[in-house]
């Protein structure tokens, strides 16, 4: 049913991300860039994780060993834009939404969220294994004068709705608009990049079409040492991570001993 209303006429894309955890220094530039780009308001105390809104959040994990073996790693976490496995494309949040406010676009692989449609039941937040979704407990508010810096390309959210990372979808709309004005349809790799990708000073994030062999992400995602978060759940996320450190990879899949490769059959 879902696929039917999305026939589309053009080429399909599968946008995704590869994050090199060995290059991430945990500086948080991606979080700041994301908030500025997507009109995310902030709270008096954003260290309070119960109420703060972040679409991109950097987690810190440590191997728990004493010096000299102590090691830490940072994990930047946007929305994973899960594809799900098999025919039914069971993206966890999409499958539970009673309002059809969130949907999986088969032409781009982006999980959409229409805020005017959402009525804030928060099923999707419960369904998302990555905590990628946040709830607006209050109407957004900015310090006086800062409203002038808001982007008109990103629609504002109101109190009582769930919001999340859209892979800066408005940037794709902008890129398409430009392409159409030049009477073409294909979108190049450099025409559409997310704000976090551009902001990362270490170049840890690579973004592009996972299906297009000419895009960097396509090769990177197949390199050895590449994994996804909680892969065993079968959510089939489109954000890949890569590291040379074994313990990081194990921690990322909440690895507890002999569990097999984790991929659930479709």
């Amino acid at each position, binding site marked *: 049913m879902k696929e039917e*209303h*999305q026939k*589309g006429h053009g080429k399909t894309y599968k946008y995704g991300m590869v994050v090199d955890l060995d290059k991430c220094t945990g500086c948080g530039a991606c979080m700041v860039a994301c908030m500025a780009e997507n009109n995310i308001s902030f709270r008096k105390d954003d260290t309070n994780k119960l109420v703060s809104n972040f679409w991109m959040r950097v987690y810190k994990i440590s191997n728990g060993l004493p010096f000299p073996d102590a090691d830490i790693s940072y994990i930047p976490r946007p929305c994973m834009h899960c594809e799900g496995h098999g025919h039914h494309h069971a993206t966890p949040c999409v499958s539970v939404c009673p309002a059809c406010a969130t949907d999986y*676009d088969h032409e781009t692989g982006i999980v959409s969220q*229409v805020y005017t449609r959402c009525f804030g039941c928060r099923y999707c937040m419960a369904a998302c294994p990555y905590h990628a979704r946040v709830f607006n407990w209050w109407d957004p508010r900015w310090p006086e004068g800062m409203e002038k810096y808001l982007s008109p390309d990103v629609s504002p959210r109101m109190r009582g709705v769930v919001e999340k990372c859209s892979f800066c979808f408005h940037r794709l*709309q902008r890129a398409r*608009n*430009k392409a159409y*004005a030049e*009477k073409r349809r294909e979108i190049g790799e450099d025409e559409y990049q997310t704000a976090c990708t551009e902001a990362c000073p270490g170049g840890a994030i690579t973004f592009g079409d996972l299906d297009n062999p000419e895009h960097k992400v396509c090769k990177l995602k197949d390199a050895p040492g590449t994994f996804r978060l909680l892969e065993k759940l079968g959510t089939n996320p489109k954000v890949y991570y890569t590291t040379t450190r074994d313990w990081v990879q194990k921690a990322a899949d909440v690895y507890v001993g002999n569990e097999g490769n984790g991929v659930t059959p479709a």
Partner: protein
Amino acid sequence: MSATEEEKKQIVAEGEPAQKHVPGEAAPEPGKPGTWEFLIAIPVFILGVVVCLFVGWVLFPAVLYCEKQQPIDFSHVVHQEAVDEGCESCHFFREDGSFSGIPKLENCSQCHEEAMGEHPEETRLIDEYIEPGKEIPWLVYASQPDCVFFSHAAHINMAELSCGTCHGSIGESDHTRPYQYNILTGYSRDIWGWNIAGIKKNTWDRMKMDDCAECHEEKGTNNACFVCHK
């Protein structure tokens, strides 16, 4: 269980009038109250319907929509002759593919720095906007809510639609028509359409989500939420 059933029976018994008209039995005698009451009921019922229809179809829309006039009575006919490149002199694509929309004051100043004729609207334009350098607060009939993304480039360059398909005859108008908006939502009346029954005769009569989606469906364009929404 049995108690409630008994209760029900009682209620039914009480609810039924004592002299209920049962088929087969004699009809109520003429002259008794009933006939003339019935005759009055018909006009009262019709009057009620008329009042309700009037409230619903005339009064409610009149209250629901507020009307405003455009700040300047702009004539497309006069200007179509004055410019060199037709519509594109004023409505064009910028380099980044975005649509310029309604021209800025700068455009008007190119010709109206000094009065060209004696039209009172032109005098007003110069005195109220061009002299003080104040942008004209045009009201956009087609304006969609904030959550909607629209691309003129996709429709004009790729789909090759004419402006009239969605905007009707504004491009050939000699006077600006009044702008109406819904007092509850603030949306332009052109979204819901001017026909209160929602009857659509032309493609530009209405531009709700379903109207966009209908054409997309017809032309085989993607109808995922993240095409028209942002």
